[in-house]
């Protein structure tokens, strides 16, 4: 129905229709008549402009998400530019991803960077640590908000005679029950929907990890499907990764020291080569500062 066919009581009228006219706008100084301003934007246009302003102000990549916003499209960034680039922005939510590599390849540093980036926005993170390896001082130095990190520590077991994680042969092996309890705890945390990141640190538990049923990871993946939780595995070698998840493989590239061996020598950085992306085809060089 066009405006002409509307009843007179419903037709829009403008000031001009009523016989009024806008005063001419003249430029200061020259007094030249300025072009009239464009007609007021429609309601839809105004709404789009407001939403753009709102998005620009609050919906930046590193800003906390708004209440009710669908966060599943926002991957969890590590905060390390080189890694986020090869991970297409970060680890995806609702998927099972992994970080693996041998000893001193930077796995723990990358995990703590991810936890720091997550907790600083007010989100919650959980770390299931069956071998009780987390150093709270390192976590705090990495910027993790410790009050927003739920830490589940494995019980101590006697007769520890293992090897460092990543070494050939068995590492310091937790009991099978400990890993089974840990995976059950991961399922509980992942299913709660309260945490943006749920990480399971399996580094150093290679031997016992292989004894877990192969369907364990598939079941854990099901818990986080269609949620905003990213499930992370940290291990010595490849464990599992969901089709939509990301694998970050780290390989040590050496240590940097401040000078020749001596009293003033400092460990300055730990370098590693990272392979990431859905098919592990992207590579990057990583350097974690030690001082």
């Amino acid at each position, binding site marked *: 129905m066009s405006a002409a066919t509307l009843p007179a009581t419903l037709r829009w009228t403008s000031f001009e229709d009523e016989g009024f006219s806008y005063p001419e706008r003249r430029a200061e100084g020259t007094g030249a008549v300025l072009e009239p301003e464009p007609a007021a934007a429609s309601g839809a246009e105004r709404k789009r402009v407001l939403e753009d302003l709102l998005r620009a102000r609050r919906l930046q990549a590193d800003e906390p998400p*708004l209440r009710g916003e669908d966060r599943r499209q926002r991957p969890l960034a590590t905060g390390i530019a080189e890694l986020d680039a090869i991970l297409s922005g970060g680890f995806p939510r609702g998927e099972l991803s992994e970080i693996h590599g041998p000893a001193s390849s930077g796995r723990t540093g990358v995990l703590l960077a991810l936890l720091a980036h997550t907790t600083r926005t007010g989100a919650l993170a959980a770390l299931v640590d069956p071998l009780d390896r987390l150093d709270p001082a390192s976590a705090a130095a990495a910027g993790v908000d410790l009050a927003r990190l739920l830490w589940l520590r494995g019980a101590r077991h006697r007769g520890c005679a293992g090897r460092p994680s990543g070494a050939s042969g068995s590492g310091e092996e937790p009991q099978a029950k400990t890993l089974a309890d840990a995976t059950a*705890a991961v399922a509980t945390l992942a299913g709660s929907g309260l945490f943006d990141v749920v990480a399971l640190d399996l*580094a150093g538990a290679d031997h016992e990890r292989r004894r877990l049923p192969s369907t364990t990871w598939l079941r854990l993946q099901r818990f986080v499907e269609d949620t905003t939780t990213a499930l992370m595995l940290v291990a010595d070698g490849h464990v599992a990764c969901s089709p939509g998840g990301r694998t970050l493989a780290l390989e040590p590239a*050496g240590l940097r020291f401040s000078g020749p061996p001596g009293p003033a020598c400092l460990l300055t950085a730990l370098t590693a080569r990272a392979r990431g992306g859905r098919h592990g085809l992207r590579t990057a060089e990583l350097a974690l500062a030690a001082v």
Partner: protein
Amino acid sequence: MFGGLHAPRALPDAGALLAVARSFTPRVEARAPTPVLLDLSGLGRLWPTPQELGRALLDAAAARAIEAQVALAFTRETALVVARACPGLTVVAAGGEAVALAPLPLALLELQAEQQELFARWGLRTIGDLARLPPAALAARLGPEGPRLVHRARGEDAGAFVTAAPLPERFETTLELDWPVEGRDPLAFLLSRVLEPLTTTLAARGAKAAALAVELGLTDATTHARTLRPAAPSGDARTWRTLVLLDLEAHPPRDAIARITLRAEPTPARAAQFSLFDPAQPSSEKLAETLARLHAWTASGRCGSPQLLDTHRPGAFAVQSFAPGPLPRGTPTPALPAARVALRAYRPARLAHVLTKAGVPTFVSAPGLRGAVATAAGPWRVSGDWWDEAFSREEWDVALRQPGAAAAGNGAFRLFLDRMRGEWFVEGELD
């Protein structure tokens, strides 16, 4: 108008008279178990005459097996004194306070011992005798207390009416079972029956339950008692039912259940005003339920938030209850430091055998690792807590050349020499 309620005989329960008074009005003043003073303002709508109101007070006290004396007057002092003195019901008309008090013994004014002795020496026996004394003259002898006593004797009030604190309300419910119950499903149904009215009562009082005491009377005549205290109060019956069931799964009763008693510890419910621009906060009920499901970890104290302690002792931390609060308003998102090397700590630290040359480690052998030191950075000496349990150590960051590994695969570890004990330890690996 005011009412005085007095029990001349000993009361079985110190708060019984106060409870009788509170059943009529919340404005009650009680300096002792008896007498109790009531502000009767507004009660004229229910009891048109003072006699009917006084009779109702006597009946209420009698229903609780209390032999009471009631006095109604237009001043507080008169109501209290007459209630103490006269049995049954006494109504004092307006303006007749001094006349009503005059013949009564002076002891009813509850004077101090020296004042009673002084008035006895002066020959004062009744309240009327004291009321006839000139206030100014009494002030010269007793100070400011003198005129106050004269005004009291004349039935005049001094000071304001002070309402007594409200009696604490008990949120408790008990269910006696017709037959003993075993198993989760029937217990879940019964808990719902008991928790729903309890949480409804709490909600009606604007409160939530900060803790819930569960007492299960068992068939072997014992009691299985548990107290649940989640991180955040909850007024949701379903959440409490889940927490109770999870707790009973972890700590099952020894026998079948014959009686269920639940007692809630109330706390004011605080409404949270969320903002469109603040991050969404986790549901406290959901968080409590999740932590309850992890009872195997929480019970052993191995679940919570790490907290650094205010000390220079390396590796000092505590694990506190996980209770993340909301971010303060206006908190800017902090800038993160650059990605750092982290320590994967060995707990306990591994005793190591270290060969040194000129004080620098050259070879390390410890459970799980062995190799020559390719590069060593250090030492850093750390010591402290000399006033308590002193520590002193020398720390090294070493790259170990492990057999079979390429140069780039040298693992990095942190060693320390405990200078108090003269022993080397591997604190952890740098990763």
